[in-house]
């Protein structure tokens, strides 16, 4: 190996004998501390393999001398968390909805819990601020298709609307146009009549009397004589300022022609009863609750 020990004249360092395009590589060894640290890491790794789970076996893995398991750690942490929350959540589980709202500590807990769960499960349709969108009710206002009391909100949460749950809520807005019950001209007339009920401007020259007649024959069963709606049937109040799908003539014509059938999933079985309770209190406290 004597031919490798050429010495670079400038630095006085031996070269490795490798050269690229006339540039020679100096044989500068790694600093000793670096090499020692590197060896220590190797020794450390071997020790780590022995004391911690490391190597995969056919169906499992080596368990390690410490018997460490991250799953067991998580289980312990979750158990601790349950212990910390334990009493409070248990109190929430047994208290009635009205009592929860009266107790500041329980109310704060239910609201905090509800807010988190709302973000995970409800915000996709109702929005992070529960403001809803076209076809998805705003939960901050006081207009409730199925009622805004604590119990009514809880029931909607548990069983949903047109969710397929045996106890689900089901409303029947017919497709008056599609099913041939009303002719297009009648639909335009009744749409304008509904706008008049809500105090909105109507198309010039529309026949109010004919509108009233069509409404009385087709709509009062659900929406009531005075068009104030019926929370038992999920029929909206047509005289107020809040419209789930919009109150302009075109939208109303579409609604009457094709009907509406929004879906709210049932949360029973997906969320535990205490969580649904907390959700009901949270939604109620958004401000629209009755």
């Amino acid at each position, binding site marked *: 190996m004597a031919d490798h020990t050429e010495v670079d004249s400038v630095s006085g360092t031996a070269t490795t004998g490798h050269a690229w395009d006339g540039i020679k590589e100096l044989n500068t060894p790694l600093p000793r501390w670096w090499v020692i640290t590197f060896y220590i890491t190797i020794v450390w790794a071997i020790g780590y393999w022995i004391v911690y789970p490391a190597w995969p076996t056919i169906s499992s893995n080596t368990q390690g001398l410490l018997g460490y398991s991250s799953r067991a750690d998580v289980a312990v942490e979750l158990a601790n968390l349950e212990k910390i929350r334990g009493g409070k959540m248990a109190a929430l589980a047994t208290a009635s909805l009205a009592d929860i*709202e009266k107790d500041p500590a329980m109310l704060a807990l239910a609201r905090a819990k509800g807010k988190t769960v709302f973000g995970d499960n409800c915000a996709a349709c109702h929005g992070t601020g*529960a*403001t809803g969108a076209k076809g998805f009710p705003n939960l*901050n206002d006081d207009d409730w298709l199925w009622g805004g009391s604590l119990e009514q909100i809880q029931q909607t949460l548990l069983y949903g609307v047109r969710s397929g749950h045996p106890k689900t809520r089901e409303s029947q807005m017919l497709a008056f146009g599609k099913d041939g019950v009303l002719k297009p001209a009648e639909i335009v007339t009744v749409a304008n009549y509904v706008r008049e009920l809500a105090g909105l401007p109507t198309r010039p020259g529309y026949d109010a009397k004919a509108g009233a007649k069509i409404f009385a024959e087709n709509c009062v069963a659900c929406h009531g004589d005075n068009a104030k709606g019926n929370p038992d049937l999920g029929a909206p109040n047509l005289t107020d300022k809040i419209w789930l799908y919009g109150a302009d003539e075109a939208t109303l014509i579409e609604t009457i022609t094709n009907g509406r059938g929004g879906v709210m999933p049932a949360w029973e079985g997906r969320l535990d009863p205490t969580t649904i309770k907390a959700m009901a209190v949270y939604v109620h406290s958004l*401000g629209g609750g009755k």
Partner: protein
Amino acid sequence: MNQTVKPDDLQPVDDYGPLYEAHKKVYPQSVSGTFRRIKWGLMGFCLGVYYFLPFIRWNRGLAAPDQAVLVDLPNQRFYFFFIELWPQEVYYFTGLLIIAAIGLFLMNAIGGRIWCGYLCPQTVWTDLFYAVERLIEGDRRERMKKDASSDPMKLERISEIVLKHSIWLLIAWWTGGAWVLYFNDAPTLVKELVTFQGPMLAYIWIAILTATTYTLAGFMREQVCVYMCPWPRIQAALTDEWALNVTYRYDRGETRTSVKKAAELRALGQPAGDCIDCRQCVAVCPTGIDIRDGAQMDCIQCGLCIDACDTVMTKIGRPPRLIAYDNDINIHRRQEGKPPVYKLVRARTVAYAAIIAVVGGAMVYKLATRSLLDVNVLHDRNPIAVKLSDGSVRNAYTMRVLNKHGFDRVIAIDIEGPANAIVHVVGADSVTPDRPMIVVGRDQTEELRLLVTAPAENNPDKSIPVKFFVTDIGLGVVASAADNFVSP
């Protein structure tokens, strides 16, 4: 009148060495004198405050901590004698930091690095560690001899070293221990710590601070001041020509000569320097510098060289303070035969003192007039406003009511804003429908959801100001917060 010597004529310091020199161990010699006494006194005072302050009690009534100075992190409170601060009042600490910074500047403008020489924890603990070392291993010469000895492994020497490090570790451990006492009830924590039932965090902090004190004061010493501390660099930029610094009066000292030769020269009526080059000022210096090289960054201006030099001057019958707190202006005035002038009142010192007074005054005023009932209001952003079925508009707010009193209070909430607006508090114990009342526990914050509804006929068509009032029914104290009411 002594021979005139300009600073430029002094022997230049070796400026051509490497940027980082291998550590040369410093063996400061013991010294006695005015400045040494001041240092002992300040060391005793500073360490006494640090080590024993957590044990002072202060009665705050039932269910409140009775430790005079306590940082209560879990409950987010800071107690300082009669003052109790909440996280919302963290600006007091900003004020304290400003005062501390300007105080440092003021010290610097008056007497240079007073902080470094007398008050800095690094100086105080290093000084204490040196005292222990001197007590066990002897003074400068003995220590140098022992370290240089070719046969260091004698039993006596080993026991000395073990004893020294044990005492150092003991001091360091106490230092770390005292730190954690500021964060928990001191007597309880001490009991828990010695029975090994204290919180893990406390042990970790004690370990960290024991290790840092032991390392910084026992081994790194002046290296901390010279290489780690930013203050010497900043200080050099903040000082001015009037600041009194530890100064070698070269006008009087040069040319250095022996006692005998100086006496001969004086007998002939010729000028002779007072410095006899005995190097006592170098021997006692804790950073190992020669003050006669002039002002330098490594000098922490502790004044020990003044004491050393005064001792020598007294011995050889020359006037003291050849090294003194002085400045170049006065050296030049003396050379010109004028009396020295010490200007403490300058634009700089006046400005610093004024800033300290203003900030301090503002803090005292704020503290004296601080309310024990506070309210913050935050407008809901999502949604910003809600239209109700009858056309009225509602805005929601999150209100925080802070009761800093030591008793529960009944609070009524009123608003002033949109006409005929109704305020509703979710979960409130209302007595009258539109005047919600809540109970806020002692020393507690209550977070409330507020719904303000303005009727349709009074709908403001834009954002209008709204003011919230919380009234303590018992004491009649009112606090308020302003926000806006928005229409969609």
